[in-house]
């Protein structure tokens, strides 16, 4: 959070009698299109963006500090509060990291449940992204459609673990809850329900001329720039890099499923839109395969009563809906982690905003913020 000088302040020699050239505009922290409390300072020439500066930290809660004062088990619910629209993914990443540190394996049944819930969560996250992104660009209707369908996912979460948003569904070593009766049929029913709905979203937007004009060739970023800026997730894939941690370094039970990594070609906003739409279909495929063959067996590995990992450190990352979500955990052999570092995808991806909108128009800034799919809870932690 920066209250002082910004490099975007007008220099004295830039101020002229006709101050029609540069305009500094403050977008946010209270702005309908910044998805929370993001503040973007824009330097404009008319409507053209000359530069941006993101001011973040309004939602900083010191998650990493809190972690050092909680036991490994107690910290688990906190991670749900980072990317709150994809809480299940956060939980999965954390639990797997600690399991790795303890050198234990979650049982296969737990892994299947984890995959199903995480993919459902990816769907929910992408749906929320689609609705808000379309709303930012001015199409108000898709928002209500996606929220209607996201509701069905949240209902499944609620039935499974009692919570809808910050689920805290997994525990270190597996899952706490056995699937409820009818879980599989609920999920199957949902799959049947949602497949045509995704077609419906595409019908509303994919060939809509205004939508195409607003998103094609907007917010372009090349694969090389993505790598240099550490941008991951759908944004990287839309630039043509076929890289998905679920395939590259499979975790949970992902190695057992057949799915594809959709990639884009140009790396503009429209490509990112198409990639995410395809990802939603791939998620459906994964869930469909997983739900048919959930193995029987225990859902919890043998975990010591008091979790006390040996001294050492670990970095483990998963493919969250937004990109690579990593946990770097340093243990000193006590019950509390010595240091936990969360590698947040939204934070790193947001850094690319400046490069993506330079030279574009104000309206494009909104489109690009939307297409980066950031959650401020995760950016600020």
């Amino acid at each position: 959070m920066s209250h002082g000088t910004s490099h975007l302040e007008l220099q004295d020699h830039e101020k002229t009698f006709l101050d029609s050239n540069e305009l500094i505009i403050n977008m946010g922290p209270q702005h309908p299109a910044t998805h929370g409390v993001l503040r973007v300072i824009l330097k404009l020439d008319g409507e053209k963006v000359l530069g941006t500066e993101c001011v973040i930290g309004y939602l900083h809660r010191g998650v990493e500090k809190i972690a050092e004062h909680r036991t490994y088990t107690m910290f688990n619910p906190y991670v749900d509060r980072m990317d709150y629209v994809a809480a299940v993914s956060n939980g999965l990443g954390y639990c797997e990291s600690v399991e790795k540190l303890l050198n234990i394996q979650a049982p296969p049944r737990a892994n299947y449940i984890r995959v199903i819930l995480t993919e459902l969560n990816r769907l929910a996250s992408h749906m929320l992204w689609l609705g808000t992104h379309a709303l930012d660009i001015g199409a108000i209707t898709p928002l209500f459609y996606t929220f209607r369908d996201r509701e069905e996912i949240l209902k499944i979460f609620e039935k499974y673990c009692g919570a809808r948003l910050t689920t805290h569904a997994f525990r270190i070593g597996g899952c706490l809850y056995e699937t409820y009766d009818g879980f599989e049929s609920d999920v199957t029913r949902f799959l049947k329900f949602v497949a045509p709905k995704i077609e419906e979203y595409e019908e509303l937007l994919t060939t809509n001329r205004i939508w195409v004009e607003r998103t094609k060739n907007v917010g372009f970023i090349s694969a090389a720039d993505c790598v240099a800026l550490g941008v991951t997730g759908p944004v990287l894939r839309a630039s043509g890099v076929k890289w998905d941690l679920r395939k590259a370094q499979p975790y949970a039970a992902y190695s057992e499923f057949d799915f594809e990594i959709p990639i884009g070609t140009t790396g503009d906003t429209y490509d990112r839109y198409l990639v995410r739409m395809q990802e939603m279909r791939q998620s459906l495929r994964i869930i469909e395969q997983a739900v048919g063959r959930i193995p029987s067996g225990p859902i919890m590995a043998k975990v010591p009563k008091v979790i006390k990992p040996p001294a050492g450190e670990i970095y483990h990352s998963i493919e969250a809906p937004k990109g690579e979500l990593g946990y770097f955990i340093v243990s000193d052999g006590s019950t509390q982690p010595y240091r936990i570092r969360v590698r947040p995808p939204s934070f790193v991806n947001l850094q690319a905003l400046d490069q993506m909108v330079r030279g574009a128009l104000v309206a494009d800034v909104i489109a690009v913020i939307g297409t980066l799919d950031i959650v401020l809870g995760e950016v600020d932690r």
Partner: protein
Amino acid sequence: MVTRLKGRHGSGIREATSYLGQNYLVVESTLIPDFLRMLRDEEKFDYLVDVTAVHYPEREKQFEVVWILYSFERNERIRVKTLVAESVPSVFSIWPTANWLEREVFDMFGISFEGHPDLKRILLPDGWKGYPLRKDYGIIQQDNEWVQINLGIESGQ
């Protein structure tokens, strides 16, 4: 790979081990920007995943700065660590992504990165005193003065 690196940098690489299947190198802080540049250019670790730090107050050089690297080509991660007292060269010129990551480390630990273009606080307000992720910073501690001046309340707790 490790032997190759050791051959070139000799004693600069203090330690090269693997724990739970993950590799890491501990190197002298004097090697820092060049060694990382070499890792990117020659060993194809082209993606800087994260920059972070760990605080060990009892040590002489109290911070351990960690760079987590990934190579798309090899599908392999490596962690490079170094011990520093309070400043370390910036890798912004190698990976632009280090910009915000280093700012966050500076914000939380007070480690200054030499050569960083715009090193200032990122998550906390500019005028804030103290570096929260240091071990000597209490969990409910805060900059009361800042809170009183800027928010007009006695305490944020």
